């Protein structure tokens, strides 16, 4: 990879995605501002993210940035266009372990899943990885000792 993405963020006006990356050749940190075009408060963020990810001018720089991360940045931009605060956008991504996600609508659920996707992608073993094992088995039966605190207050007979 010639460019290693370090951080990314947004700039509201003009609406842009900002990428801090390291140029591997020169070993310098650089900033790239990618204006977001043809994007309105009605746009589909997941589509916009996909387009940007495949954009021939930017794709080398964005290699280390996942599509769901780009989608998230687009959501922040769109939220801003719709008049929502940055705090609102950020808290909508936060996954509260106590929150019942069954009650969310599609869009809000997508925000939470987008957040979860980061770890998923990080830990993911792909089919084309050289050491991929389809039928990976690990026996945990020996190390289950501790009682789970999640069971403690349950008296529901399960």
């Amino acid at each position: 990879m010639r460019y290693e993405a370090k951080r990314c963020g947004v700039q509201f006006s003009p609406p842009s995605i900002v990428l801090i990356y390291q140029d591997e050749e020169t070993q310098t940190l650089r900033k790239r501002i990618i204006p977001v075009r043809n994007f309105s408060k009605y746009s589909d963020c997941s589509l916009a993210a996909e387009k940007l990810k495949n954009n021939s001018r930017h794709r080398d720089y964005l290699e280390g940035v996942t599509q769901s991360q780009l989608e998230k940045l687009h959501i922040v931009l769109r939220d801003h266009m719709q008049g929502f605060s940055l705090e609102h956008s950020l808290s909508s991504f936060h996954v509260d372990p106590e929150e019942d996600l069954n009650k969310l609508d599609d869009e809000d659920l997508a925000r939470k899943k987008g957040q979860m996707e980061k770890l998923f992608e990080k830990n993911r073993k792909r089919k084309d990885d050289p050491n991929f094992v389809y039928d990976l088995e690990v026996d945990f039966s020996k190390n289950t000792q501790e009682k789970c605190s999640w069971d403690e207050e349950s008296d529901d007979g399960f």
Partner: protein
Amino acid sequence: MAADVGDISEMNQKKYDAEEHVKIICLGDSAVGKSKLMERFLLDEYRPQQLSTYALTLYKHTASVGNKTVTVDFWDTAGQERFQSMHPSYYHKAHACIMVFDVQRKITYKNLATWYKELREYRPEIPCCVVANKIDADMKVTQRSFNFGKKQGLPFYFVSAADGTNVVKMFREMIKRAVDYKQNPSDFMDEVMQELENIDLENKEDNSDAEEDGLKAESPEVL
């Protein structure tokens, strides 16, 4: 809503009466990773059939169990509450159930009780298991014991759809149990009872004709 249930049943659930055809459902809260688990097991073996209006993705899979080839239909359902009215069709004629929770979100574990209770109202006897997903996020959870389902003797699996741990093992064992369940003649009574219960239920809820027609057409075979 009633119309929805009717439409979904038009996907001819009668095929599940054939001996070599089983139906396995995957249940659990939103975002616990049901779809990711299915994808990990099947890789890209088949393109699934998306029925987004029914919050349902159908995956077809061919497995060998013993010396038999069986067709497995996986019903990957959505956890969102607004699809509650679809649940009866999910359970209808299912031969096994995979119940998933997210080890990072306690509420999804707590909600298993509700999912399980509902499952047993429709399918009192089918094999079922409890799956703790996303262990890659925190391997320490595998040192804890989760007691939900212990009393009922439900098998328990620690899995990760991300790194693949125990996913294939879990699915293979559940396919085997679904086939065993179907072949076990002692469950004949249960099948009959289930059909009756379903008819009763559909009348109560005043659901569409399609589903009832399906059931009537089947009853000679069942009885």
